[in-house]
């Protein structure tokens, strides 16, 4: 429906990108539409008009507006996303847009600008991770990217505390559930994607055929085209049957979480619930239990499995 109503508005050198539950392909009843008009080319005053038109169309369709932090909605410029990785100008908004562009976004309509920005961001992470003149190669876990994904996850966790103070109890329980499930899922997908460079390029013959590191860039780009659940499922299948049991527990817990979000009454209860009342809420108790099961499954996958993931977690996951 969004494609039919919005794709025709998007001019050359731009892409309409959606994030969040739409980007993860996990839309539930109460999902909002986190979107941005991504510019990758010469500036044109028409771009703002298009962004405003998109906003109006979404309002006409009765879609919930993007979150109040102002991360989404309006315009995003590729120059900031590509060039400002790290440093004082890399704001929370820029970091969030960049990492979510990789890990939980989808494009509505023409995807050429969208793919170009993703390819350029990945190119920076891969190329700048290689120590020039030191015989280094890109066929390893790209630490630059992995650190930025970890930074994003920690930022989300820190901002959780910030929002709790700023907004008092409003939305606390829902934010908690999302932090423990969907936000964590995105981090997991990012971590596994970076690990996959080391495991999938372990063969020397693949490396010899890769002048310029384009195969690594394409490998990551193709991973990021998947949803977070898709990335995790792909990894689990790669190591089947070693991870079959924790995978079942992980997906069952996540499925339960999505069912709660998709239930209007449950979602409303979580939206209104305060920390003080949480111990009397069966919905909160359920979602909290699902979060625990989800974490236990992840602990098995990352720390207790006989796959390369365990060794990679030890080597890259903390220090």
């Amino acid at each position: 429906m969004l494609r039919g109503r919005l794709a025709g508005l998007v001019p050359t050198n731009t892409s309409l990108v959606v994030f969040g539950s739409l980007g993860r392909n996990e839309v539930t009843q109460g999902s909002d539409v986190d979107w941005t008009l991504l510019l990758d080319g010469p500036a044109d005053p028409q771009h703002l008009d298009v962004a405003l038109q998109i906003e109006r169309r979404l309002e006409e369709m009765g879609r919930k507006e993007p979150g109040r932090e102002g991360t989404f909605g309006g315009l995003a410029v590729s120059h900031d996303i590509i060039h400002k990785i790290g440093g004082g100008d890399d704001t929370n908004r820029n970091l969030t847009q960049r990492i979510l562009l990789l890990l939980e976004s989808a494009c509505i309509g023409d995807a050429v600008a969208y793919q170009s920005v993703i390819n350029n961001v990945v190119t920076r992470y891969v190329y700048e991770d290689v120590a020039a003149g030191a015989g280094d190669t890109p066929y390893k876990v790209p630490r630059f990217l992995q650190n930025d994904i970890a930074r994003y996850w920690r930022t989300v966790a820190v901002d959780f505390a910030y929002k709790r103070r700023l907004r008092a109890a409003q939305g606390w329980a829902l934010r908690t559930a999302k932090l423990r499930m969907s936000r964590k899922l995105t981090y997991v997908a990012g971590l596994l994607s970076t690990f996959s460079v080391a495991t999938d390029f372990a063969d020397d013959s693949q490396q010899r055929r890769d002048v310029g590191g384009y195969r690594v860039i394409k490998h990551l780009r193709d991973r990021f085209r998947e949803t977070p659940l898709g990335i995790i499922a792909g990894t689990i299948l790669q190591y089947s049957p070693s991870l079959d049991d924790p995978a079942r527990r992980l997906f069952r817990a996540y499925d339960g979480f999505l069912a709660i979000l998709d239930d209007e009454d449950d979602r409303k209860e979580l939206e209104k619930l305060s920390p003080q009342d949480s111990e009397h809420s069966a919905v909160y108790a359920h979602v909290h239990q699902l979060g625990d099961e989800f974490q236990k499954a992840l602990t098995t996958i990352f720390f207790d499995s006989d796959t390369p993931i365990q060794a990679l977690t030890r080597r890259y996951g903390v220090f």
Partner: protein
Amino acid sequence: MRSFGFSTGAVALADFERAIDLLSTTAATAIELSALRFGELPALMAAIPTLDLVKYKYVSVHAPGAFSAAEEPQVVELLQAAADREWNIVLHPDTVHDHAVWAPFGSLLCIENMDRRKPIGRTAAELSRIFERLPDASLCFDFAHARQCDTSLTEAFWILEEFATKVAQVHISELDGHSRHVRLSPGGVAACRSFAEWIPQDVPLIIEAPVEPHEIEEEIARTLDALTPRLAVAAA
């Protein structure tokens, strides 16, 4: 050594005879006869028997960049004169109305990857859909178009990887902010250098950047230098 040269359109717009004259004393060993407007094609094709093209190891014809469905059979009929000489016919995929009328050209039909303004033929995935309908067609890899679509050149890499056996000709130039072909800037030269390993060495190079007559040799030398593989880019 690979063949290299110019598009006549880049040297003298629609005046192909003047372009051939200007290129006759240069080092060019390849030429693309350009009829970018439908109205230019009949005169170009009629003139073929009279053109002095002996010095060229490689000759191709660039089909018009737009024509109606009603004009399409006439375009195909006119281009048959090029096919009869075994010359490649470079075609923008978005101009096609009926794929069936182009299929008989087989591998002489050289589909060009497109710039961002076009709705199809820009990426490896989009080109795949065209080659599904024209399975015998070859590829004219346009570096400027690929770089405009993705400045990281990841998509360019994938186009050449995916269609390695189809690449029959390469277009070299750069695009300005209005998608017009221009001479390689220092950034364009650097991009060519970083990507030179992936440009097939045995495929003719055609420069599409508009030049003044006195700039022809310089642009050939600059382009060839930019596309000389240096094997120093492994692992970035």
